[in-house]
């Protein structure tokens, strides 16, 4: 429950690298075009290879597709439990007994461009968990999680910082 002390197991996660993984499939252009199409992004970097060659030395991924490669398939053979993106967030919900959660803030920093064919790896780091707070949604805790991304050359391509709020509904003031 949110009014109880933070479990030792959760405290031990703070600063620890967790859920290191490599994407199931390389960065591929079909998804990049689908992403651009979903927001009608006509940036020629993503559609015109001559422009991409001139400006970025070849095709790149839209920077905001950084986390795309780590969202699990909705189903795959032999996997009977659903894998969840940002697993630390869901671990916190479970361990802290907070059934609902939102992401209130996020920040993303871009380094080396991601390119089609890259194989991206990631790891998650819990940075902090707050004392109990009450918002209009309910009572719970805020937490901050970093997600670090690297390419197959160990070059950092980006870091995402998420602030989540896990809560119980109906306990707001």
């Amino acid at each position, binding site marked *: 429950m949110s009014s109880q002390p933070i479990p030792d197991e959760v405290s031990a996660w703070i600063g620890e690298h967790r859920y290191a993984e490599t994407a199931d499939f390389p960065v591929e252009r079909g*998804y990049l075009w*689908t*992403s*651009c*199409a*979903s*927001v*009608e*992004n*006509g*940036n*020629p*970097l993503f559609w015109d290879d001559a*422009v991409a060659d001139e*400006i*970025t*030395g070849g095709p790149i991924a*839209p*920077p*905001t*597709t950084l*986390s*795309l490669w780590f*969202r699990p398939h*909705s189903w795959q053979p032999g996997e009977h439990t659903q894998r969840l993106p940002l697993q630390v967030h869901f671990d916190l919900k479970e361990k802290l007994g907070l059934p609902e959660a*939102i*992401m*209130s*803030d*996020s*920040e*993303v*920093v*871009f*380094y*080396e*461009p991601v390119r089609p064919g890259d194989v991206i790896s990631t790891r998650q780091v819990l940075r902090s968990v707050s004392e109990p707070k009450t918002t209009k949604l309910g009572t719970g805790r805020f937490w901050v999680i970093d997600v670090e991304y690297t390419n197959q050359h160990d070059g950092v391509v980006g870091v995402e910082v998420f602030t989540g709020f896990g809560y119980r*509904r109906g306990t707001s003031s």
Partner: protein
Amino acid sequence: MKLKLADVTVGDRLPELAYDVTATTVVLGALATRDWRPMHHDYDFAVNRNGVRNIFLNTPNQQAWFERYLTDWTGPFGRLARMKFRMRDSVFPGERMVLAGVVEDVTTDATGCGWVAVAVELSADGRLATTCTARIAVPTTDDDNPWRRRGDNWRP
């Protein structure tokens, strides 16, 4: 189009982008970001489990909308470095989404890279839904290209 640092002044307003959001917008955005969670495609789940009034745009797709908005303005030489988001409310089908930005800072760092800071508000039917502060590199001269920067010369 090639926006250069000298073209930008603190207080400049970016052209607004208005878009009428439909259920297709929400579902396409969720699938494009590989987000299979039901609140972004299942009306019944969104209403009865999440307690909201409809399916709603997911965060990664909103990021893509912000990216599109910013690079529509800078052109392809604009290189995004950092984006910070605050989600205040949801964006639902049937609403008119408007993105509006203003330049908050124009600087050059020690390596000579030109930087613009932009505050963008995404509203839905006039209700503030998400704010984004972005740091984006733009060329300082006709020959400059922020995408060529690597290692210590790229300080996002």
